């Protein structure tokens, strides 16, 4: 499942992968929260891949996923992991090193 913003297809600066488990409350929250956070980034400079472990269970082993939801920032370096529903927005932005420009 790919959600690619078409505006700048040449080279998205941000690459994310979100692992979820079907429609569990935490997974739904994580998707919604990620959506909000992505608004902090300029349009079209990010790419998000969402993987539903319930549909692709073997990805759990391939990618070493322990808990869901789990967000992995693949680029820019360094790679970082965010576990949980991404509800703690402040921590998420801090971990992703995103400046809260459009805050409030």
């Amino acid at each position, binding site marked *: 499942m790919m959600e690619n913003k078409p505006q700048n297809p040449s080279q998205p600066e941000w690459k994310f992968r979100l*692992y*979820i*488990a*079907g429609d*569990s*409350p*935490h*997974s739904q*929250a*994580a998707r919604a*929260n990620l959506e909000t956070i992505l608004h902090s980034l300029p349009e079209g400079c990010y790419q998000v891949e969402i993987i539903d*472990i*319930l549909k692709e*269970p*073997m*990805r*759990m*082993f391939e990618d*070493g*996923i*322990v*808990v*869901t*939801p*789990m*967000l992995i920032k693949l680029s820019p370096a360094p790679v*970082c*992991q*965010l*576990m*949980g*529903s*991404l*509800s*703690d927005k402040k*921590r*998420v932005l801090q*971990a992703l090193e995103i400046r809260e420009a459009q805050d409030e």
Partner: protein
Amino acid sequence: MNDHPESFEPLIKMPTGIQGFDEASGGGLPRHRTTLLLGGPGSGKTVFSLQTLVNGAQKYEEPGIFIAFEEKTSQILTNAASFGWNLQDLVARRLFFIDARMSVDAVKTGGFDLAGMLAGVKAKAEEMSASNGGKPVRVVFDAVDVLLSHLENPLAEREEIYRIHNWLAENQITGIITAKSGVEGAPRTETGALQFIADCVIELKRAMRESISHRTLTIIKYRGSDFVESEVSLVVGKQGIDVPSLSIFDMDYAVSSARIPTGLPRLDTMMSGGYLSGSSILITGAPGTTKTMLAGSFLEAACLRGERALYVSFDEGPAEIVRNLASVNVQLAPHIESGLLCISSSRAEARSAVEHLVKIKQMIRQHQPTCMVVDPISSMVKAGGETLAKSIAQRLIYETKAIGITLLMTSLLADFDQMLEATPIEISTIADTWIHLSYVIQSGERNRALTIVKARGTGHSNQVRELVVSNDGPDLQDVYMTGGEVLMGTLRYEREAEERAGLARHQQETEHYRRELQARQAEAEARMRAVQQEIQVAQEELATLDQAADQQSEQRQQNQDEVRRIRRADADDDGSRGSEG
């Protein structure tokens, strides 16, 4: 419980392959359910759960998945290799390890759950079950508390535990969850909830007793099953966890009535042919009462029959035992060379009693003896307390009996009366045969006496015998009873000498009398011959006399005829006339 989807499924047990534990739990862990393994650091949780998986894969061909939340899987594999478990083969076919450690850098940003991971494990389990002929899968969640603590929310932790619990039941998977137990019986929140939810809760403990490490296992709870409620000792040895068998469920061993020589022919006689094959013999006595010697000659006799024997000593080293016994003509050295006899010595204090038992069991497995000696079993008391030593001794007796080994144990005891009140390890009641050796002090002498206190299933002499040790080896001597007193040592010897003298005297007298009678007979015979001669002489004389008389009368007739012829008288008348006139 409403949320238990398989409430009405009958309880099936899954053997862990750890024999002693399977016995204590009446067959193993509950299948398709949740077992919680609690314990402090180093209590053996990981080893126990991994061993259950390895045994499942090896002995029962059941695939297993090990989810490690705390340790690196490579580390776990290394640890497993040190137990001699060959995981290389198994990992390819039946075992799967999941490194589920959370990255240190992972940032917690909100609630999470295990739904994703369980979905993955389920897929893997199905795949492994299918490739192993549909066999059920065992899953270990090792150190789940590490992960749950990230939730920072007791309610959420509880929810995840329920998730695992229900997931296991729904998917017919047997789960073992390990978690650290809190300090001093105060469980951490998550393990507290775990204890309520789990169907079976086992606690592993490690404590120091008399500066010897001592591990125990307690089954705290087992829904729908009876189990041994008391603490069970366990050992983490070279081959992993060993829970010494309790054998209280099954005392049905093949009973033999064959006799095994004791090594002392006269003791065999006292016991209707020897010890019962596969029985346990306890020899008690004060120091120096030749307990070791009896043990040694028992094993020597076994080796001479070509049987394998094992000597476990807590006293002396092998070389010392061999030398000392050789001095009384119990020769063990040739049998050690031939490999029939194995002598093992260790300091009793060096290990806990359970460790000793496990080591002894290992030696039994390796050496396969038919006869064995533990000398002295009372040393076990040194290793971690009396009650424990007692139960260990009991287990040793039951286990050797179960596999038909004749076990001879010695025990140090000062005197018999003390023993009747309280046997140090109270094994005298379990042992089949109890021989007591004591000193009898009499007329300034200390002599060894042997008594068969009891001998189950054996007719036995109730007489006290004297045990004499010479360069030819130990032997039993009859004792003398005089006026209700048993004579031993010099007194016995004197009495024997006296009897010997008496016998000689008696023989002499008889001989003398015989000669007298012979002489008398000869005399009578001589007399008889003389009389016979006399008779003969008389007869001859008589015959001569008769002959002479005949001749005389004939002569007289002739003379008369001559006279008549001269007188010319009638032959008939003349005579009468002649006499008248």
